[in-house]
């Protein structure tokens, strides 16, 4: 991977630990991926064989399109995108740090509770902003 982004080591360590916890503690999580805004995966916890690099690229496209939509509608900055499906959902949470523009992606099956996942992903985002 020729990605040149360098997050501080304490941020990376926190992300590794916390993403693994989200994957382990929340029922129904298939995969969580922390990625750059331009679609490179940085840290991930995979439970279902998903490819984090594909998820990172897709999260990047969807986040960018949601930014365009929220600008067009004068809704202010896009915070997250939720794709709700018949058998689960995907949550993409923007995390804009001073040193890096990131997207956190959580994909879950129908056993997961959307509110729980959003609570954990927003909490993770806030922590990354203060670290």
């Amino acid at each position, binding site marked *: 991977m020729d990605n040149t982004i360098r997050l501080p080591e304490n941020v990376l360590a926190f992300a590794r630990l916390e993403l693994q916890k989200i994957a382990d503690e929340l029922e129904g999580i298939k995969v969580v991926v922390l990625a750059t805004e*331009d679609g490179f995966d940085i840290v991930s916890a995979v439970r279902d064989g998903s490819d984090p690099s594909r998820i990172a690229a897709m999260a990047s496209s969807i986040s960018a399109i949601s930014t365009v939509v929220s600008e067009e509608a004068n809704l202010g900055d896009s915070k997250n995108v939720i794709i709700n499906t018949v058998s689960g959902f995907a949550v993409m949470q923007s995390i804009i740090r001073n040193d890096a523009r990131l997207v956190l992606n959580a994909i879950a099956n129908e056993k997961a509770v959307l509110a729980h996942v959003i609570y954990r992903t927003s909490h993770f985002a806030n922590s990354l902003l203060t670290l």
Partner: protein
Amino acid sequence: MKQIKFIFTGPPGAGKTTAIATISEFPPVSTDVFSTDSLSKLKDTTTVAMDFGQITLENGQKIGLYGTPGQRRFKFMWDILIQGGLGLIVLIDNRRPEPFKDLAMYLDNFSEFIEKTDAVIGITCIDIKDTPTLDDYQDFLKERGQIYPSFAIDARNKDDVLFLLNTLLTCLETS
């Protein structure tokens, strides 16, 4: 009159976003974000979903202009963006180390689409690096048995981009 949809593709930095902005009659929809890989040495941003602009020809024909991300990791967007498209404009950056390999990659990945529709090729940045030449590209295409029109263009120049568009329209009319 039915709107025509054309798709711009090619490697990062070839000028897809610029070409669409150069000719679009409204400020294009852009999904560029800051790049974090080695591309950032060349330019600050990269397209991660799509560009979208529009141009209306003198006869009233509207053409929707869609730009793809250049990187292969966004291939799923290529497959979305070609839907309903009538032609492909491949921009190739002559500065890059292996422009033929770039050209082959896009022609291969869009082969099904351009077999059904048509394609033109624009070589950019020949002002910065003048080899390979246009003749070299035409030889390369002939060897592959893909005789698509190819021209040297500057994506910042309106007449150049319009010329590509008109060539593609002519190809479609005559095929």
